[in-house]
């Protein structure tokens, strides 16, 4: 049973839109839209929660398992194929982000290929552990947050310049729309939740987590830009940079480690969530791990032989394919919802008991 608790869902809602917007996206977005980026990203994240609403509606009806029950395995698989395509494309860039991040912060002069294989192995392992394991890891990862706050409060040296956040909306609307369109691949990540049975009964905590996530993304972008100014375009891996504020404390070493670790954990877990969805698609039979393994092998081969660097990956996913991915991300939950409604038929009024 791929069931997650409501608390696990709330934590996922907080982390999922956050993680991959805190790596290379701030710099890329700043490059396109300058200081307006911190407002734009807020709007993007907010819109992203519309997809979450759709996904949660579907989950309430029974998720993809409900489709399998009502329409059979063939329809289930037919709907799942585009989702697998989306996951494949997204994993290309997100895995590459993790590997690039690791090689930038953890190692010097190390073969990215070796790290790539290990990362994929870890993601495969976690992805095939099941929803509970991933959900619980998400729960445990939130304990990094107080650690970051404590470290930041004690050792952070923040030099902010609010002028760096202006001007806003000084370019044409088409510039902003095209920037949003270009980096759509980093957004709308909730479709794996279609394969989970979610126990979310209340709307308020979901809304609070969504707003909190939007707020944190916007504040982080604003802090990053007001700290780096025009140099933000070079400040890739914003989350780690944000944590240190360029500060190196001579007594205990550089302080970005808690943030680096949190990002890495959350990043790996977010991708594992996608692999878990793939694992679910391959069904309950004994071969499902084999299928998931082949899927991960395919990604590894593409990354090792074709898209070898992060730049190439970003180039690949910003060349038009992101629109197809985005369309599927929205269309599939909608289609599933329509299928559920169609099966309900006309509802009879039940006599009052």
């Amino acid at each position, binding site marked *: 049973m791929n069931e997650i608790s409501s608390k696990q869902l709330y934590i996922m809602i907080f982390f999922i839109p956050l993680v991959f917007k805190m790596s290379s996206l701030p710099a890329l977005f700043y490059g396109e839209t300058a200081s307006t980026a911190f407002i734009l990203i807020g709007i993007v994240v907010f819109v992203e929660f519309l997809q979450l609403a759709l996904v949660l509606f579907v989950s309430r009806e029974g998720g993809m398992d409900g489709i399998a029950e009502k329409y059979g395995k063939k329809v289930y698989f037919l709907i799942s194929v585009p989702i697998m395509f989306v996951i494949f494309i997204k994993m290309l860039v997100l895995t590459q982000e993790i590997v690039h991040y690791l090689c930038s912060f*953890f190692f010097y002069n190390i073969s990215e290929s070796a790290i790539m294989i290990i990362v994929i192995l*870890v993601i495969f392992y976690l992805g095939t552990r099941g929803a509970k*394991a991933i959900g619980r890891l998400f729960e445990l990862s939130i304990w990094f947050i107080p650690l970051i706050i404590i470290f930041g409060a004690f050792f952070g040296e923040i030099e902010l310049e609010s002028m760096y956040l202006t001007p806003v909306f000084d370019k044409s609307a088409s510039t902003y729309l095209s920037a949003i369109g270009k980096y759509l691949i980093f957004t709308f990540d909730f479709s794996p939740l279609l394969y989970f049975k979610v126990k979310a009964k209340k709307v308020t905590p979901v809304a609070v987590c969504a707003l909190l996530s939007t707020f944190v993304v916007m504040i982080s972008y604003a802090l990053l830009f007001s700290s780096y100014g025009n140099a933000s375009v070079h400040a890739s891996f914003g989350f780690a940079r944000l944590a240190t504020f360029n500060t190196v404390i001579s007594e205990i070493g550089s302080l970005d480690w808690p943030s680096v670790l949190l990002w890495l954990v959350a990043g790996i877990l977010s991708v594992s969530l996608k692999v878990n969805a793939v694992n679910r698609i391959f069904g309950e039979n004994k071969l499902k791990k084999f299928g998931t393994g082949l899927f991960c092998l395919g990604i590894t081969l593409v990354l090792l032989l074709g898209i070898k660097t992060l730049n190439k990956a970003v180039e690949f996913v910003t060349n038009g394919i992101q629109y197809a991915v985005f369309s599927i991300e929205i269309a599939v939950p909608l289609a599933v919802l329509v299928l559920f409604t169609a099966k309900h038929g006309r509802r009879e009024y039940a006599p009052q008991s």
Partner: protein
Amino acid sequence: MPNNIDEQVEGLRALFGFPPDFTVRDIKTEYFYGKAVYFDGLIDVKELEESIIEPLVRKSEPFGDTLEGMRGIICYGGNLKEISYEESKETLLSGSAVLFCGSAIIAIPLIKVVGRAVAEPPTSSVIKGPREGFVENIKTNCILIRKRIRDENLVFKEITLGKRTLTKIVIAYLKDVVEEQLIEEIETRLNSFEIDGVVDSSYLAKLLEDRPYSLFKQIGNSEKPDVIATRILDGKAVVFCDGSPIAIYVPFTVIEDLEDAQDNYKRPMRATFLRYTRVFAAFLALFLPALFVSVQVFQFQLLPVELLATVINSTGNIPFSPTLEMLIALVLFEILGEASIRMPRHVGMVLGVVGAIVLGDTAVKAGLLSSLTVLVVAMSGIGIYAVPDEVGTLGILRILFVVAAGLLGLFGILVCGMCIVSYMSTLSSFGVPYLMPFAPIFKDDLKDILVKYNLYDLNNRPGSFRLTDKIRLRRAK
């Protein structure tokens, strides 16, 4: 079944293979003829003579040779029972005398309690709090609990396990707090094995665990009656095994090993501080050797320049790689630990001193190990004993982390940690997730874990597992 007393006794003797300790005491008077059978040394013969045989011999009037007939004659306070001939074999083995009369066979429980007195357990000494510890006698252990919980709802359910050892097992719980399904599950799991012998409660733990081959224990244990009484009051089921001074309990979550019996007897602030110290010590024990390897091999930028210089000066001339050096030091530490436990006490003490000072110092002077490595291993070794119940697990894990750190540095530690935690998150103890109340988060239980609350505010029993009565404390109106 043989017809007369003599045939019955001889048949029984033959059944046991004519053992030398099989004793038969004839009781023959004008009004009574019978034979008391027992294993010499297993029962209290004096009590048999004084309470049973002497009153029967002295009786100068006729009486019935049944249990009812003998009541009022014998002056024995224990629980006498009429048994069948088939049951007599098992009764004899369990430490009873069997009285063969003309019309009945009577079991007289007279087991001689030989064992040590109740004393402070060597593995859980306390500064403040009760100093009693369990002993090898199951009855004494049950009394130690009964003494603390004088509630009619405290149930001691007895079962026998072990085809050859016929070991008494007692399941203790509060029947109006614990869900009956938990007890049924314990019994089902224990009875699903036909084992030839159970000589210690650790055998039961292995039979009860969800994943017996896991590195992580899923059953709690303690040698202290006050701890076990607290667990019973928390709504857990405790299992005692005759012959073992360690009681085991279920369900169990990993966080319980970071708690200490004394936490309840200290001021909440002090208890909280010590709890965090223990957690820090456990992290130190687990990660310090791996982090040290990691900063040497990959992440030297993690260290400030002065500290980096110290590390380089200390480790520069060592002929081994940092990983191998650390592994050698850790394995040596484990060997010292094992040897000092098994050596005679005085030699063990000497070995400890020799190992710690002479060997360590000599290894450093000889240039085989760096002084920092010895320091790191020593700190880790001290830290590991802050959580004594997890020494075995932490000892293996830290070696695993060192290997991961040697291969992939901090990333290796992280990956290894994630995989271990994800594995732990799939473990459960009788349906209760192993990482409760952190994953899944259970807010109510967190309040006694993150900060040790005063008893005054702990109104409910732990909510991580299902109970029929959750209220622990209610204020009087």
